[in-house]
């Protein structure tokens, strides 16, 4: 059991450091694991919270009242799931081969460099002066670019896309996310109205009797 779990984790470092052949191999050997992806997501979530709360005081003073784990959790998870579904939805039309499960896995595996670098940034920001903040920013950008490359590469491998196809699918994903969020907001406001109508009716009746 433990050996199997270890085996799964090997793919993470392999994919991150050898993205070109790594994702292909992971796909054919079915090496990606949803469980590992969930752990990676939690690490990412925690890094976002750390960035909000534990940046050095040389850079900013955080108002603790404005840091909310629940909001961050919902925002990141919601965005991630929206991206997964949007990408899947568009890429099915473009003859993409990845399943929803695969997309959840590769999105989270691709986030590893960003997560790692943001931890490093948070750590360094507590020892750097404001003037050195540019350097920590550079580190964060390295993480972002690395993650972007992994994402494109993984989409190419799992969807069997060309490079331009992968880029196109990313653009479509962004549009899809916007559409999904819009619909969600619409849905939420609709439900709010329905519930307020019901509650008003309830109160009217209760006041009468």
């Amino acid at each position, binding site marked *: 059991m433990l050996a199997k779990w270890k085996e799964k984790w090997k793919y993470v470092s392999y994919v991150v450091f050898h993205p070109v052949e790594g994702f292909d191999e992971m796909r054919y050997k079915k090496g990606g694991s949803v469980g590992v992806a969930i752990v990676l997501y939690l690490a990412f979530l925690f890094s976002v919270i750390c960035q909000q709360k534990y940046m050095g005081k*040389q*850079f*900013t*003073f955080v108002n603790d009242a404005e840091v909310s784990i629940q909001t961050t959790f919902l925002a990141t998870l919601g965005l991630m799931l929206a991206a997964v579904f949007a990408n899947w939805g568009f890429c099915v039309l473009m003859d993409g081969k990845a399943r929803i499960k695969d997309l959840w896995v590769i999105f989270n595996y691709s986030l590893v460099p960003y997560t790692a670098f943001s931890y490093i940034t948070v750590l360094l920001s507590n020892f750097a*002066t404001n003037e050195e903040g540019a350097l920590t920013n550079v580190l964060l950008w390295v993480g972002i670019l690395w993650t972007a490359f992994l994402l494109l590469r993984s989409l190419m491998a799992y969807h069997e896309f060309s490079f331009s196809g992968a880029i196109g699918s990313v653009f479509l994903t962004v549009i899809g996310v916007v559409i999904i969020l819009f619909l969600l907001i619409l849905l939420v406001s609709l439900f709010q109205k329905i519930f307020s109508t019901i509650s008003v009716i309830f109160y009217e009746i209760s006041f009468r009797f």
Partner: protein
Amino acid sequence: MSKKMLVKWLRLTAVCLVLTMCLSVAVSAGVLEELTYTYNSYADAVPVPDLFRAVKFVGGESMECGSFSKPAEMYMHTDGNLYICDTDNNRIVVLDRDLNFVRILEEFYYPETDETIYLYEPSGIYVDDQERLYISNTQDCSILRCDQEGVIDRMYFTPEISQFNDEVYFEPTRLLVDQQDNLYVLCRNIYQGIVMFNADGEFETFYGAESVFASAEVRMQQLWKNILSDEAKEGTAQYVPTEMKCIDIDSEGYIYTIAQAHSTLGTKNQMDSIRKLNAKGADILVKKMPKLSFTAFQGAAVHLNMTDVVVDEDGYITIIDAAKGKLLHFDREMNLLGMSGCIGYDLGQYQVPSAIEQNGDRVYVLDQSTNMITMLELTEFGQAVHTAVSAYQEGYYDQTVGPWNEVISLSANYEFAYTCLGNAYLNSGEYQKALECYELGRDSEGYNEAYKQIRKDAIRNVLIYVVVAVVAVAVVAIVLVKIVKNRKRR
């Protein structure tokens, strides 16, 4: 119900009534606190102890002169006399520093034409160093200069310039005189600036005109004007600067003005309408709101209607706001020290405050609607803040540690005090203490400076050991390598 019971109940009710009455008297005596607050860097309003406490609240009814009527302006002379422009009663009332009645000025004698001159809705007064009164005789379109007895030695009439014509009369309101005897006058319906008369009483120039705020609407208009014909241009609306509402001069000769700010939200900041003008008429108050006076206050300031400003000898700026009845107290760098007051009829509350003056530790607020004058005194806390700020702004950082600690002991919420204390510690090289103060003052720039120094010291302390260690390791390595090589040779 028996008769006995009824009597019992009645007694009980009476006792209750008396008790509640006593209680309400006690409560109403207790609500006279001003509730001063300021803003912290998280944009929250934070209560601080009162900087000023209202101590006296008087109207003309209690004096020989009778009630005031819509008094528009007053002036506090350095000798302690308060001159009130009792506008609708067409007179000047003089009170002393403790708001006791001194005398009335109603009739003025003009020797040049040998006639008696009466005031007609005066709405501006100033008294210069030679005790000469300058009075804006607004509806009479003139300004008169007289001595304390009311003998006029000079009259200022409408300047002969094109800005004053059949449509726009010379209606002087607030005025002041600088050290060179130049007279600065605000006029109704004049947007070109402050009307300035020289020491000889002749019109000199328009001084310190406001600039038109370039909102999107104004920009659009400019674009159109490039295209339109000359006839069409005349039909378009003209954008002119807003009129100035009040004027004051500080001990260094800088003139402070506040203009009617744009009411449209987000176009111009209300604080930008406060200006400090130098001799050339240029605004030198560059940092209207430094970091410490907070974006939050800028947001709140949009809804203010600042009617008068007073600057004391140490440069503290106090502004009265008619929209919410607030007294805003700033230091000379426009850091918000605190704001207090509200709309109401109680002590320390105002209806339409029209003028503010100060003398020593006292501030006087004139209310146009209630016709009352409120006298406020600097509290212990206010004095502590003033002591600290004054020493701090004159650059005696090392002397500010005590005063700032005093301020903090009176109000632990005062972010401004922590930051200034941090600066004082930073200046004297006590970086660890500075760091702690900056943390409490939530000043990341200062924190950065202190941290830089602390880290530098730490590295300097550690560096020597690091160098020694590196050298030692290198020597050992070289020796080892040589030993190994020697062995190989054998």
